C-alpha cells in the first residue's frame, strides 16, 4: 500500500513538471512572436491618421484640435496621456483621454459627443477617436505614468473605482477581480495582470491602448473596458461614463511610476 501511494505521488509530480514545461514554452513562443511583430506595430498607421486628423478642419465650426488642452496647455500632446485621467478645472470633472477629446471636439469643432457615446466601435466618430487616441498616446511612450492624485475628486473616483473593481453582478457573478485579482493567472493562454498590485497595474494600464493582432483593430482603453464588461456578462458600460473613468483612475493610480508603453501590441 505504501509503495502504491509513492508511485501515485511520483506520477503526479511528473505530470506537474510536464504541464509547467508546456505552458512555459508556449508563453515563450508568444513572447517571441510579439518581439517579431513589435517592429511593425500597425498602431502606427492609426497614429499617422490621428496626427492628420488633429490638424484637419472638422465639424460645424470647421476647426482643428490644435488648441485642445489635454492638461499641459493648449495643443500640447507630449506627455499628456501619461498624466491622465486628471482633474480639469474648466469642466470641473475628472476626465480620461477619450472623454477629454470629446470635450475638445465639442467645444472647438462643434461635434456632438453623442456621435461617439452612442456610436459603434470601429465606425464613424468612434473610429476618428481611435486614431486621435493613437496619436496622443504615442507621444507619451517611454514616459513614467504620472497621475496627480492630490485633487479630492481624484481620490473619490479612486474609491469608487475600487468598489467597481470588486462589484460582482450578472448571471456569471463575475467582477473585474475574478480575473485580475491574483498574480500569475491565465484565461486560456492569455496572461492576466493582477491589477490590484503596482506591477500588474503598470503592465496593464501601461500597455493599453493597443493594436490587437488577432482582430487587426486598435483598441482604446474605453474599448478595452467595454469588452471586459461584455465578457463579465454585465449590461454594457456607457462610453466615457463614470464607471469607466473611476476604473481608469483606480488602475492609473496603482500604476503610478510605471512605464507608458503605448501604443501596445497585443495578441
Amino acid at each position, binding site marked *: 500500500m505504501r509503495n502504491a501511494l509513492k508511485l501515485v505521488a511520483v506520477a503526479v509530480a511528473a505530470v506537474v513538471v510536464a504541464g509547467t514545461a508546456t505552458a512555459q514554452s508556449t508563453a515563450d513562443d508568444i513572447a517571441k512572436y510579439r518581439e517579431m511583430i513589435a517592429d511593425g506595430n500597425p498602431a502606427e498607421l492609426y497614429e499617422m491618421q490621428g496626427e492628420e486628423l488633429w490638424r484637419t478642419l472638422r465639424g460645424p465650426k470647421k476647426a482643428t484640435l490644435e488648441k485642445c488642452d489635454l492638461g499641459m496647455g493648449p495643443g500640447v500632446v507630449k506627455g499628456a496621456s501619461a498624466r491622465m485621467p486628471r482633474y480639469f478645472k474648466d469642466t470641473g470633472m475628472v476626465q480620461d483621454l477619450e472623454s477629454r477629446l470629446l470635450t475638445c471636439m465639442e467645444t472647438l469643432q462643434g461635434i456632438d459627443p453623442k456621435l461617439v457615446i452612442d456610436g459603434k466601435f470601429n465606425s464613424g466618430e468612434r473610429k476618428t477617436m481611435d486614431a486621435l487616441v493613437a496619436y496622443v498616446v504615442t507621444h507619451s511612450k517611454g514616459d513614467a505614468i504620472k497621475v496627480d492624485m492630490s485633487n479630492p475628486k481624484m481620490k473619490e473616483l479612486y474609491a*469608487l473605482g475600487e468598489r467597481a473593481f*470588486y462589484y460582482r453582478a450578472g448571471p456569471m457573478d463575475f467582477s473585474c477581480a475574478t480575473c485580475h485579482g491574483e498574480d500569475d493567472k491565465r484565461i486560456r493562454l492569455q496572461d492576466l495582470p493582477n491589477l490590484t498590485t503596482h506591477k500588474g497595474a503598470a503592465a496593464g494600464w501601461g500597455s493599453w491602448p493597443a493594436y490587437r493582432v488577432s482582430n487587426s483593430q486598435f483598441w482604446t482603453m474605453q474599448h478595452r473596458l467595454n469588452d471586459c464588461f461584455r465578457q463579465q*456578462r454585465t449590461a*454594457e458600460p456607457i462610453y466615457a461614463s463614470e464607471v469607466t473613468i*473611476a476604473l481608469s483612475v483606480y488602475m492609473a493610480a496603482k500604476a503610478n511610476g510605471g512605464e507608458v508603453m503605448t501604443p501596445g501590441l497585443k495578441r
Partner: protein
Amino acid sequence: MKMKLIVPLALAAVFAVPVHAASSDELDMKAREMMKDSFKETGIAKKHRMLQLDFQEACSQAKLPPTAVMKQIEAEQMKTIKWPSDGKYYGDWKEGEKIAISGRGLTWRDKADAENGGGCYNCHQLSHNEISYGTIGPSLLEYGKLRGNSDEMVKYTWGKLWNAKAYNACSNMPRNGDAEILTEQQIKHLMAYLFDPESPVNKR
C-alpha cells in the same frame, strides 16, 4: 419655530459637503448609483444585471466576508441544487468536451435562444490533449482517475457544477445550473467528461 431650525441646518449640510471627505457609507451609496447609471441595456444584456444578489454583494470586497456569513450563504445556495431528475448523472463525454471548450453565451452580442458553453477551459486544465487552458481554477486533469467515482464524489461534483457557491460562498466559478447558464443535460455531459475512463480527461 421648527422651520427656523431646519433651514440653517440644511444650509450647513450643503456647505459641509465639499469640505469633509466622503465617508465610506456615502461612497458605497455613490458607487451603487454609479453602477446603475453608467450602464445601458444592449441586446440580451438587460440593465437589471447590474443589481446584486445578496451573496454577490457580500462577496464584492477585497476581503472575504466573515466565516459565519460564508456558512450562511453556502447553506442557502445548497438549497438551490437540483439533482438529476431521472437519477442519472452521466451523459456523453464527447458532448461534454464541446461544452467545456465553448466559452460562448450570455454576452450582449449573443442571442437569447443560443446554447451557452461552459467555458471550463477558460479557467481549468482538463484533458491530456488541450494545452490552451486557463489557471484561475485548479487543474482538473485526470479528475475521475484521481478522485474515483464514489457516490459522495459524484454528488459533490454535480453540486459544484450546478452551484459552486454552495461549497465556497465567494467562489469564482459561475452557478451553471442555478443561474441557468447550462441545462441539466449539458451538466450530465460535463459529468461524463470528468468521470468517464474513456474521456481524454482521464485517458492519455
